[in-house]
């Protein structure tokens, strides 16, 4: 991990202007992803995982105020004019969004959509773009691509549509692929296929991947590094094997416990009680405190725990990093 | 959330919407004028004064006088009642008939639905004002026929809105539960269906009032509304159109009265829609035609 990271964010904070006042969706987050590696951002909805990525790539809503430093391929995006940022993003970052039934434009053919970024950034002609589209559709495993390139999104099944979106993300041969819960809207068998496809493509093309998910099961299979987010902050960050073997944060432990595994019935899963904090009203101390099974002292309630090292490159934001004795799930 | 608390919440939200407050204030003023116009008017509506013909606005006649020397302000004030009356009665007819048709169609479905709604489609196939004109033309012009005509014209939109609401409520669990425990149709409609379609109907009613008053003005402009010598805003415009280049006040004041009235209903209606039923898109349908 000595290579220059593809994308690195430092102290990223995103504040959204809402009707009911400013909402801090992301509060001082650091992460990076190295070439060819996969970073998983894990958390419940509203934890800031998606917003941190959108803000880093300049896709945050207009009402958002973004601070911090973002480096894409060594260039400081925050210092660049929006035009240049747009070009860098389009050229070097591919996006796969959650729901393929809405992330494609219903009134344009898939071929046109797959390669319009390549037309813009690589200067392909319409004819070249079409050939490239067929090639990309074949790459992601769409049968009779030469025919289907002229069809519209609604003519594809959910899984095939997500393959189209992946082809679209790869159009400019990006250095980084951002996959925002790409399997959530799909059925279980298709989910596995999509995960496999992305992993295979990554290996072949050497692309770095940021995989946003709430599903720790997916993380184990695809990620090198995992960052668990809660209430706009990273609460645990480390190599995926270490985090799974020795989760340091009570929240991570709860997530792991809530993960369905073979041999267990769903009903036996311990759910996490309560709901995540509102970004409009983040607590002064540990955001997880109200739901925390460990429930430490007043310090947890009033003081923000720092990220502390618990292993090599494994950091945890809690005053109680080791599992309390005799209570390991 | 119950329909009742929704309505209360809506009303409190309206208080913080300046255009809606302005609209409501104008409506209140209109009701006062509508009720007491005769007594507020400085002169009789048919006080002809040949020495005062076509006088521009002055202290004695703030809105000027018409070609017969009648006081325009008095006529505008008294005519408010006609507009409100026609608007309220005709929309009342449309609401009653349309909602009943829509309720029956949506609740019983099947061939009843088909026959009723195809009938509504037929009425919908005519441009609004044209149908109203045709109806008044055969029934003979006058206040009552204008009300009936406008009522008929706006019936289909109420039937459609009601039917759509009933269809969506019918599929909901509590209604199916009520059906399964053998509650009578009337009871289900009264207890479960009506409260849940009240919001779109309220919105539709207030917006339709605006259109109905416009339609009444148009009918009376064409001489098909309330008959002279009783004053009506549309008719005053028609009579004044020939003098408009010499006597602008004849065309200006009655028209401004129509505009303000319609605007007030629209402002309140839009605000109600935003609060009660944001998904309802009535504008295009309700006013397909300016004809």
């Amino acid at each position, binding site marked *: 991990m000595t290579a220059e990271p593809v994308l690195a964010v430092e102290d990223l904070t995103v504040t959204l202007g809402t009707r009911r006042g400013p909402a801090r969706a992301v509060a001082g987050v650091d992460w990076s992803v190295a070439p060819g590696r996969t970073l998983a951002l894990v958390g419940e909805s509203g934890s800031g995982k998606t917003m941190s990525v959108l803000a880093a790539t300049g896709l945050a809503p207009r009402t958002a105020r973004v601070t911090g430093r973002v480096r894409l391929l060594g260039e400081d995006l925050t210092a660049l004019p929006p035009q240049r940022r*747009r070009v860098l993003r389009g050229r070097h970052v591919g996006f796969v969004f959650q729901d393929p039934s809405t992330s494609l434009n219903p*009134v344009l053919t898939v071929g046109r959509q797959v390669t319009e970024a390549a037309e813009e950034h690589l200067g392909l002609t319409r004819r070249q773009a079409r050939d490239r589209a067929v090639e990309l559709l074949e790459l992601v495993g769409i049968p009779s691509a030469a025919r289907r390139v002229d069809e519209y999104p609604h003519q594809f099944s959910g899984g095939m549509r997500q393959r189209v979106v992946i082809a679209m993300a790869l159009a400019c041969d990006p250095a980084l692929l951002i996959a925002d819960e790409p399997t959530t809207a799909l059925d279980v068998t298709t989910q596995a296929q999509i995960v496999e496809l992305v992993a295979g493509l990554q290996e072949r093309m050497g692309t770095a991947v940021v995989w946003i998910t709430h599903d720790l099961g997916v993380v184990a299979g695809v990620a090198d590094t995992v960052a668990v987010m809660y209430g706009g902050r990273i609460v645990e960050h480390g190599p995926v094997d270490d985090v799974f073997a020795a989760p340091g944060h009570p929240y991570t432990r709860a997530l792991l416990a809530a993960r369905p595994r073979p041999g267990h019935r769903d009903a036996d899963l311990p759910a996490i009680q309560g709901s995540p904090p509102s970004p409009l009203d983040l607590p002064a101390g540990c955001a997880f405190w109200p739901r925390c099974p460990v429930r430490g002292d007043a310090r947890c309630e009033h003081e923000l725990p720092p990220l502390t090292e618990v292993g090599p490159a494994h950091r945890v934001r809690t005053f109680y990093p080791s599992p309390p004795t005799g209570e390991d799930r | 959330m119950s329909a009742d608390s929704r309505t209360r919440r809506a009303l409190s939200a309206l208080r913080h919407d300046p255009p809606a407050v302005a609209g409501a204030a104008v409506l209140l003023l209109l009701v006062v004028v509508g009720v007491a116009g005769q007594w507020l008017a400085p002169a009789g509506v048919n006080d002809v004064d040949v020495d005062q013909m076509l006088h521009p606005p002055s202290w004695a006649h703030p809105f000027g006088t018409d070609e017969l020397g009648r006081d325009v302000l008095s006529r505008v004030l008294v005519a408010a009642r006609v507009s409100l009356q026609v608007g309220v009665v005709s929309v009342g007819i449309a609401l009653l008939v349309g909602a009943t048709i829509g309720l029956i169609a949506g609740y019983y479905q099947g061939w009843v639905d088909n026959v009723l709604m195809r009938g509504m489609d037929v009425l919908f196939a005519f441009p609004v004002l044209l149908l109203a004109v045709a109806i008044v033309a055969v029934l003979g012009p006058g206040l009552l026929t204008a009300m009936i005509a406008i009522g008929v014209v706006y019936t289909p939109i109420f039937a459609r809105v009601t039917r759509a609401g009933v269809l969506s409520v019918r599929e909901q669990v509590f209604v199916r539960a009520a059906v399964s425990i053998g509650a009578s149709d009337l009871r289900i409609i009264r207890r479960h269906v009506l409260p849940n379609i009240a919001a779109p109907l309220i919105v539709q009613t207030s917006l339709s009032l605006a259109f109905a008053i416009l339609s009444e003005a148009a009918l009376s402009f064409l001489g098909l509304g309330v008959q002279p010598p009783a004053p009506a805003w549309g008719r005053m415009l028609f009579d004044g159109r020939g003098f408009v280049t010499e006597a602008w006040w004849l065309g200006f004041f009655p028209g401004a009265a129509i505009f303000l009235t319609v605007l007030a209903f629209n402002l309140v209606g839009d605000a109600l829609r935003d609060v009660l039923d944001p998904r309802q898109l009535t504008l295009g349908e309700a006013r397909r035609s*300016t004809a």
Partner: protein
Amino acid sequence: MSRFILRRLLQSAVVLLGVTLVVFLLLQLVPGDPVRVALGTRFDPQTYEALRSRAGLDRPLLTQYLSYVGNALTGDLGVSFRSGQPVTTIVLERLPATLSLALTAVLIAVLIALPLGVLAAVRNGSALDHAARVFSQFGVSVPDFWMGIMGILLFAGVLGWLPPSGYVALTDDPAGWLSHVLLPAATIGLVTASILTRFIRSSVLEVLSADHVRTAEAKGLRGRVVVLRHVLRNALIPVVTVVAVQLASLLGGVIVVEVLFAWPGIGRLTYDAVQARDYPVLQGAVLLVAALFLVMNLLVDILYARLDPRIRVR
């Protein structure tokens, strides 16, 4: 797709049949004897009998209706109680005037509403957006004939730029036609524009918040490309149909504006027929307008299906 068209065609045919019934029944609603009422002081027994039998009023109701529909299908809508001329001829003569007025009005409306609605949505919350909302609220509430009168007052009276009313056929004198059509067309056009502006604004706003627009932005496309290719293209599909529906209802003759500006179109014809109690002409005008309206709506649906690939396939 052809099945969709077939179904709509069938639906329209059923509705059209209903329309003929309504139009036919109009005459039955006239209190008393419509021919006698129509003739009024010009009554003479010979004309009376001739008109009655020509209108078929001496036959049973069902027979009357069936022959009314049958005749209508062959283009025979009866004869005028006044002039004795065929109604079809009378009505068709008025079509060009209404057509030229309606098309000009819609053109004006689109020229105003399209840029205004799109810009208001793209700059949501800006001063321009507020202005657009005030404009559309004004336009939806203002009586068109009042605006017409104010227009006459300003442009014909005070400024003297345009004639206050009247009609010149486009084919006779294009410049004269233009000067006469401007005021009535602008009157209708402004009202139509206000309806369209609202619709375009909300349609564009809806598409702007769609996921696929974020996808397009993620691709790093230029803002202009995103708006033109990924927003407008989608947002304008429903707008096209609304424009067409507006045009359809304007073709129905804008009675009040045609009366105000002495524009000899279908609307003016309807008004004159009402004044003269010339019921066959009234029926003919209403029937033609409703039929036109239905056909236009049918075309709109087909057009919509052509524009939106999601419907095209079905």
